[in-house]
């Protein structure tokens, strides 16, 4: 665990010209703070926005005893220095956050406290005012400037974000050593270092003293893992690994196949796990490694759509637009596009082209689309799928995560070509859960080749704008995969019988099946499936009706059935963008099926 930064009495940090509390997207100040002991009547400042108008900051302080409370928290301006309750304990790290929103001329400030990293912070105060905000001069940390209320303690992982963070986002941030939302400034404050690591290169100034490394650190989980390896062919192997952050656990080993093997590992700051290995077998091998965070890499592979055929500005190809969307979350987005090539050729050259971009220890996601030219050449859907699945297996064996991209519709297609593509697309949509980690169904947007916004004049290749749309579709699937969110739906089922018989059985994975069978008066199922990891289904029996309602978001394939042994059975399915099989079992005397949409959105000019 890295220790924090201690501010001596009178010392504080400041950053000039922070954003206003009235910003359109709100504002959040947060950070971990620690005061070893308190003197009665003293105040210990943490986070403040400082205004030139009255030299009084919007801020948050620990209060060590006053006429109204003891060891509680206090908020200043506005309204001046009001107690907001809560209690604290000496020598404890606290994660503090102030979240501002402004709506309808009213500014709302919510103050949160937590002492447990990763836990949902407690809301201890909600305050409102109508006065519009002036522009703050400084974002101050650890002092109320002329009021001699310095922190006299330690801080770590302090930030200011130009957005109103939710409690779940605050919980995530409280357990992170880096910004988890886009921050205006972020000061990790590890071991006395107080530079900005938000990516905005803000100047952080220390006034009234010199910050030093603290003897304690905030209880925040440290980054994940790094690995350094050297393999030598014979007598001597030497390895030196310098790890930037201190490990929770370190594994080191040296194996000599020849005369000697030596290894030195210098560990500085925390990692969850670091493995350093040197194997000797050849004359000399030497590695000196500075281990940094290994960002994921995205690879786009395929035919002319990937290559950006016909788009003169390379910045408008899919890969650079996708990199813009993913930002610093990924190391790079690699464009491997080969116009005119068939699936067989792309498969044959897969290893030589893609493997150089696959590295051990780096998470890699491959999205590919390879069917179009094969279908155009008359290759069958079955043979094309053979190439697609083989490519997916090759990638998986290399430790690469795979996204299938269905083929866009082309205006010049023959009917046979289009039928082949439909067969391939259908197979990909059906088989991706087994062979891939994700699916991007391009047909949801690229189904009308006469749409000149999405298609070039040839009615086959996307425009730069169209490539932006494809990048957006890829973004959400890659975001899901990098975030570790499962594509499988989990559903719980509850059934309550108020009369003779009610039963509900649901098994939802990548395919959903919901069924209600009423042998008696009434059974009903209401299923709501959007993009949830968990949904609930309830069935209640009591009257002479059986019904099943399924509201589906992005499920891939769904089957809904209702069977009634009594007067009425009905199935109502609401769909959003998925393939659906409806299983309907008619019963006496009445049955019907309806299809409508669950959600509907529109944009209205004002």
């Amino acid at each position, binding site marked *: 665990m890295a220790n924090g930064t201690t501010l001596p009495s009178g010392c504080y940090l400041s950053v000039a010209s922070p954003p206003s509390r009235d910003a359109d997207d709100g504002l959040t100040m947060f950070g971990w703070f620690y005061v070893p002991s308190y003197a009665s009547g003293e105040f210990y400042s943490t986070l403040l926005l400082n205004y030139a108008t009255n030299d009084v900051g919007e801020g948050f302080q620990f209060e060590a005893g006053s006429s109204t409370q003891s060891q509680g928290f206090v908020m200043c301006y506005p309204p001046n220095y009001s107690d907001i309750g809560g209690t604290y304990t000496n020598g404890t790290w606290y994660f503090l956050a102030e979240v501002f929103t402004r709506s309808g001329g009213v500014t709302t400030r919510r103050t949160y406290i937590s002492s447990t990293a990763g836990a949902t912070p407690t809301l201890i105060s909600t305050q409102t005012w109508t006065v519009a905000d002036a522009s703050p001069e400084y974002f101050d940390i650890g002092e109320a400037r002329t009021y001699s209320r310095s922190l006299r303690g330690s801080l770590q992982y302090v930030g200011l974000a130009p957005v109103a963070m939710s409690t779940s986002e605050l919980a995530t941030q409280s357990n992170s050593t880096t910004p988890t939302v886009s921050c205006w400034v972020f000061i990790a404050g590890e071991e006395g270092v107080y530079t900005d690591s938000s990516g905005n290169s803000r100047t952080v100034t220390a006034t009234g003293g010199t910050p030093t490394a603290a003897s304690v650190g905030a209880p925040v989980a440290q980054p994940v893992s790094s690995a350094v390896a050297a393999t030598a062919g014979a007598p001597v192997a030497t390895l030196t690994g310098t790890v930037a952050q201190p490990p929770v656990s370190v594994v080191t080993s040296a194996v000599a196949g020849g005369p000697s093997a030596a290894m030195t590992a210098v560990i500085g700051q925390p990692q969850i796990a670091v493995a350093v290995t040197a194997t000797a077998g050849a004359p000399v091998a030497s590695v000196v490694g500075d281990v940094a965070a290994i960002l994921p890499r995205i690879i786009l592979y395929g035919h002319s759509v990937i290559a950006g055929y016909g788009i003169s500005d390379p910045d408008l190809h899919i890969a650079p637009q996708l990199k*813009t969307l993913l930002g610093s979350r990924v190391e790079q987005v690699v464009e491997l596009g080969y116009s005119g090539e068939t699936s067989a050729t792309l498969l044959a050259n897969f290893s030589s082209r893609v493997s150089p971009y696959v590295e051990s220890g780096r998470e890699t996601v491959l999205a590919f689309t390879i069917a179009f030219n094969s279908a155009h050449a008359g290759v069958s859907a079955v043979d094309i799928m053979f190439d697609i699945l083989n490519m997916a297996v090759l990638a998986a064996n290399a430790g690469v995560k795979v996204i299938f991209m269905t083929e866009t519709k082309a205006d010049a297609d023959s009917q046979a070509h289009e039928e082949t593509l439909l067969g391939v697309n259908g197979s990909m949509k059906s088989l991706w859960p087994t062979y891939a980690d994700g699916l991007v169904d391009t047909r949801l947007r690229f189904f009308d080749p006469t749409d000149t916004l999405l298609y070039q004049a040839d009615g086959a290749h996307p425009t730069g*704008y169209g490539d932006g749309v494809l990048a*957006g579709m890829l973004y959400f699937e890659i975001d899901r995969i990098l975030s570790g969110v499962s594509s499988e739906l989990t559903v719980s089922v509850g059934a309550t019988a108020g009369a003779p018989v009610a039963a509900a059985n649901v098994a939802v994975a990548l395919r959903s099946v919901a069924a209600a069978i009423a042998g008696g008066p009434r059974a009903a199922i209401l299923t*709501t499936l959007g*993009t949830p990891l968990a949904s609930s289904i309830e069935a209640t029996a009591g009257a002479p009706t059986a019904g099943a309602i399924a509201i589906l978001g992005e499920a891939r394939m769904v089957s809904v059935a209702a069977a009634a042994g009594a007067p009425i059975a009905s199935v*109502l399915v609401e769909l959003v963008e998925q393939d659906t099989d409806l299983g309907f079992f008619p019963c006496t005397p009445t049955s019907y099926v309806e299809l409508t949409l*669950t959600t509907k*959105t529109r944009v209205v000019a004002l």
Partner: protein
Amino acid sequence: MSSFDVGDEVALICEFRVGVALTSQSEVTLQVIRPSGVESRYTFGLNQITESSPGVYRRNLVLDRPGRWLYRFTATGSYRGTTGNVVVNVDPSPFSSV
């Protein structure tokens, strides 16, 4: 796909229905990706999204730069659902700055 001009103020509106009935949601989030790639997130519980009538949610937005804007509404409370990704295209102004 909608198309607007730079400077247009628009309302992003989403209806949530359970069965056929418009139904209020306990948790609604709006995500907006601007042409610069910057994503903003708005939450109903923080008064960043208004419920104009039961089940109907909206937020006004000034389209202050040209390019492709993406947005989606998501409900994550008792009922869960999403609109999927919606693209709003903002045309660049044909006029030079005054």
